[in-house]
């Protein structure tokens, strides 16, 4: 697995785009025990990031919170122990689709048996904040569970990226800057003219423009980076983004 971290995009326009890392998660899943701890850790990180959409999916299908939690835990522990055979063709490439298909398969075939066997004890595979998860659920609407899953996935991705971004700015001592400028990521140029922002931060308008530009660049890089972890080839990043945008709109 290629694990070079991409260098921060300080390149000028026209320079080649940094290499985005893909997890090669299909290989990890099929590798069996010989996968190596780094690959496994990467997969575990993915699971820890995206458990909420699966929890939301289980809830949307009618399972009570406690059952949904058990279900999600059981599913992920199997996934991480590589006991879940991949039913989807992983060459399709999307971790998101794979997870949903596997979850469906798990629900249809194995959950009943797992429950019957009453696996008690053992450390849970993931740390789940159940109360917070319940709060983050959308009120029941017309969306099918699949749509709800995709939408939650998109929200999860956005939250992960924004949190990373926020932390980066905090580490550089620019927390206030981020707090004020983050709205520009949602395109709100009209509501907060640069002149106002400049005044608030004691910077020139030109400096604000540059800061906004850099923020957006970094945001886009991070989003692509995160999405790249869930697809098999960098070319798929954009189509995945389109799909997630639709999911949010639906």
């Amino acid at each position: 697995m290629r694990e070079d971290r991409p260098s921060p995009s300080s390149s000028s326009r026209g320079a080649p785009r940094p290499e985005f890392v893909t997890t090669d998660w299909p290989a990890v899943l099929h590798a069996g025990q010989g996968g190596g701890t780094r690959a496994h850790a990467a997969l575990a990180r993915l699971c820890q990031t995206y458990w909420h959409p699966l929890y939301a999916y289980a809830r949307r299908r009618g399972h009570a919170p406690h059952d949904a939690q058990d279900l999600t835990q059981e599913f992920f522990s199997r996934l991480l122990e590589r006991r879940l055979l991949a039913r989807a063709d992983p060459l399709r490439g999307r971790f998101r689709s794979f997870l949903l298909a596997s979850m469906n398969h798990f629900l249809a075939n194995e959950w009943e048996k797992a429950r019957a066997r009453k696996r008690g004890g053992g450390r849970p595979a993931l740390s789940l904040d159940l109360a917070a998860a319940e709060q983050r659920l959308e009120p029941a609407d017309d969306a099918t569970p699949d749509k709800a899953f995709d939408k939650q996935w998109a929200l999860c991705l956005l939250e992960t990226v924004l949190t990373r971004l926020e932390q980066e700015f905090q580490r550089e001592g620019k927390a206030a800057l981020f707090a004020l400028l983050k709205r520009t990521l949602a395109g709100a140029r009209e509501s907060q003219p640069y002149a106002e922002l400049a005044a608030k931060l004691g910077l020139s308008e030109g400096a604000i423009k540059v800061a906004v530009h850099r923020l957006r660049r970094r945001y886009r890089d991070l989003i692509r980076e995160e999405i790249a972890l869930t697809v098999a080839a960098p070319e798929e990043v954009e189509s995945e983004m389109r799909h997630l945008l639709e999911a949010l709109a639906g």
Partner: protein
Amino acid sequence: METKCPSCGRPLAPNAPLGLCPECLMHCAFPTGGDVACGSAAPPKSPRFVPPKPEELAPLFPQLEILEFIGQGGMGAVYRARQKQLGRIVALKILPPEAAGGAGFAERFTREARALASLSHPNIVTLYEFGQADGLYYFLMELVDGVNLQELLRAGRVAPREALAIVPQICDALQFAHDLGIVHRDIKPGNILLSRRGQVKIADFGIAKMIGGDVRADLPASPDILAAQQHGPTGVVGTPEYMAPEQIGHPAEVDHRADIYALGVVFYQMLTGELPGQRLEPPSRKVQIDVRLDEVVLRALEKKPEQRYQQASEVKTMVETIVQSSKTPLPPPLPPRLPNTVDRNGTGGPGRETIQGAAGSWNTLKSLPLLVRVVLTGAVLVALVALGLTAFAFIMRSGYVDKRPLAYSPNKLQSAPTVAVIQAGLADPRNSMPWSELKNRAQAGRLNRNEADIIGDGLATWLRRNYPNGYDWPFDDLGG
């Protein structure tokens, strides 16, 4: 915190990431080549099953007037249409192309559709016509003006009275189809329609089998089925939450009893508003309903098909019996805390207090629970009932005679569900009628282990409650 996105104006949900509008954020993530304000670029749509507009369908169905798109869900898109010649309003359902692409689909489609067309019943959505139009598989069906159960359940529970009116109609539909050898395989709230006139109509009979092929859950799903799953239709091979265990484990051996299991799940969900969870709690523990309904629901939910009701009509009879008998005056309520069933709010009836007055004559009896344990491990059902009869012999011999009119006549007891008979017996242990009936059933092999447990525990509780000083028991003639 703002409630609307300043950029696009859409309402901001409380779970919006960092308080920002998710759609605008996502828009902004696209490269725009130059630093144009985020959110102005509209990304192209990715392909997925978009239901055709009515005018797009019209040329494919010259015999129909396509009136409007009703909805998308389940296994396709549904439209309201009018058959020009007959002047009849119908529902036109088309299958998404991805779902219909598998091997042997056309053959399965025809075979199943023919079987469905033979289902003419007031509680089954009638299939009028089926076929292919320009590669698009379609059905023409009865249009039901109403809602489906899924929509009702989204609002929470269904009132018990309504649930008890719905279930018998589902049973009628299932029994009719089962008698013709047709199994639905995908009974779930989404497939149960309720017309404005209160009539239940089951939809999508056999469609799961049609699309899923020879359903073998252990084989890898073909890419097109997965695509169908991802693009909208869920549960191509049935919906897991409603699937009987044998449907999950050995799909090839599934028979009509899988439908009965699914009915149990739906029944449970109607009464309690939830799916039966890991710990199967009897519905009356969650809602104020007749305790006897627990037995019905739980038996339909038995893991092993042979332990379920074997016919949908049996379920209907049980439900109707309970509904009927709850309209006539009940026998004195159960003594509280009947283990193996549920807690009830009822207190002991007048009979209990009067018996306590005769406590003196029971002082020599040993504690019952030991006996119960012994008997239950031996599973001597008849002996248990004999035990009960012996108890009454003692009571009778103590000189106490019940002069109250009996609430249950022998005829009523014969046709009542076992749990009701047991309750009658435990409520009024001096009354030998329910116990005779139970003895008959035990001898005919119609008492099961669970019922024996209830009798044993019920007696134990009752006796302990009434004779706290202990009581003796003639163990010798019981054996085991």
